[in-house]
């Protein structure tokens, strides 16, 4: 199976897949920052859990009072084993039950999925969490190995993701900031209507193929219309459109240039 190549800007890597409905969708891959934030939340929650477990063990120790060296050794082994079991149960249990999400990932709306875009199978969840013991090396700088490996590949995969064939994606469903509101009249001057934005973007992307004369002509017509609608002035039509295409709202432009004379 050939792997789909990541593309897009360096900061916003994407993973394109085809859904069973035969529609291509593009996952935003989670960046190193949000993944470390999710990891930090998980570590915090685990610390709470281990705090409780520590109290239980301490009470049990007081009650049972192991006197011999061997009994203390047995208890020590059991505590280390319990630590390992609780750690595995947390990561594997949650990602299995919540289909690729730990509490930290859920809070930041991240999800570990199979790199073909489907849900990660149980074996992949087992592996990616098992390999944490490699990724967190060296213990003094947690996730040192994982961090370096994540920086070194375009999809921010850690070693566990490579072995399990998984990626972590973002699942934010909220509207992107540049998205035009459904009813442009509701926010006059705040944002371009969807069709204006489309025209501005289309101009920006095609302007290089136009002759200078027609570029000036087209730019002036579009800019005139938009400026009139939002009460703006412009000196250079092409520059005005380029700024709008980059996402400045008319209100920001107005604030920058002051009221129209």
């Amino acid at each position: 199976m050939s792997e789909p190549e990541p593309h897009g800007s360096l900061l916003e890597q994407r993973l394109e897949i085809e859904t069973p409905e035969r529609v291509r969708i593009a996952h935003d891959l989670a960046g190193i920052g949000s993944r470390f934030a999710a990891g930090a939340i998980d570590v915090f929650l685990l610390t709470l859990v281990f705090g409780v477990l520590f109290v239980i063990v301490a009470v049990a120790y007081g009650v049972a009072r192991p006197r011999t060296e061997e009994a203390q050794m047995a208890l020590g082994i059991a505590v280390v084993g319990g630590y390992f079991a609780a750690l595995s149960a947390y990561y594997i249990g949650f990602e299995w039950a919540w289909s690729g999400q730990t509490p930290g990932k859920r809070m930041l709306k991240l999800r570990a999925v199979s790199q073909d875009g489907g849900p990660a199978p149980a074996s992949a969840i087992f592996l990616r969490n098992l390999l944490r013991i490699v990724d967190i090396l060296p213990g003094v700088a947690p996730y040192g190995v994982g961090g370096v490996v994540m920086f070194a590949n375009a999809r921010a995969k850690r070693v566990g993701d490579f072995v399990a064939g998984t990626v972590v994606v973002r699942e934010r469903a909220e509207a992107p900031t540049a998205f035009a509101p459904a009813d442009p009249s509701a926010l006059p001057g705040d944002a371009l209507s969807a069709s204006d934005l489309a025209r501005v973007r289309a101009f920006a992307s095609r302007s290089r193929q136009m002759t200078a004369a027609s570029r000036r002509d087209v730019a002036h017509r579009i800019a005139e219309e938009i400026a009139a609608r939002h009460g703006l002035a412009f000196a250079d039509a092409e520059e005005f459109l380029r700024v709008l295409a980059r996402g400045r709202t008319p209100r920001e432009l107005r604030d920058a240039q002051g009221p129209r004379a």
Partner: protein
Amino acid sequence: MREDRFVEERAVRWAELRDLLGRAQTRGIRSLSGREARRLGVLYRAATTDLAEARTFRFSEATVQHVNRLCVAAHGVVYAGGTRGRVMQRLADTLAVTFPRLVRRTWRFHAVAAAAVLLPLAATWIALAGDPDLAERAVGGAARARAERLAALPAESRRYLDLPDPWLPVLSWGIMANNIRVTLMGFAFGVTAGVGTLALLAYQGVHIGGLLAVFHDAGVGDLLWTFMAAHGPLELTAIFVACGAGMRLGLSLLIPGRRSRAAAFRDVGRESVALLVGTSAMLVAAGLIEGFLSPSDAPAPVKWAVGAATFALAVAWFVLGGRRADGPAADPA
């Protein structure tokens, strides 16, 4: 079609989908009622159609992005169910068929893992025998102190591990969890192209060899042998299998063949899960023996017999398991 009309007409539906998704994402799919869950499916399919439409009409990047994000989020929720279902059946299949087949197919790696323990074990034993100073530096003074303390006791009250009965379940559980931990680590360290796994195996060999040398020098070697006899063969076999899988993983990185390195890594990794499940089952059995039978007063021949029997069973499992289902139609995954 005009983009503003398109957005206007669908905005309500998208908002509804976003709302359902928000709840499913933060509180889980179970927080939706049956009707809402079905509605989520309908809205998701509608959104995929919207996405295809927005692309076809070359609507602005902002619109396409927005619908795409909705589809991605909904896709994650709608197709989240794949990891569950009939777990016990799959586990049983793995243990009965996939695991033994895979051990047979990859036996060379397990043999190398065995050599990586047994050779250092023998070398250490030979090197340290009769040289208490070197032994103390190699395995620490605690082992020697323990061996000498045991040697000082009258023969009938000598026990390798003297543990009151109530502590046996604690010990057994701890041993189980720890052996599984160390074994899984041996596998995971395979990603260092096998070097980490080899180091871990050699360390185990040196440790056991050192203990044997110290206990034999103190004249209580039989105590250690009797203690290890019941659980040792099964436990070591499991470690050989899991660490062999780790080295196979490391080799797939070095020599990926015709696949890309990442693809080879992933294929071998996913295949290895069956080996880890199988060895974990073996280590649970070994841990029960080590926690209850090995420290008990059962006569040495019983312990040796249990060790031999469990080893024979494991070998029979590897050699015979999954044979009947062998065939071109059988699914190796």
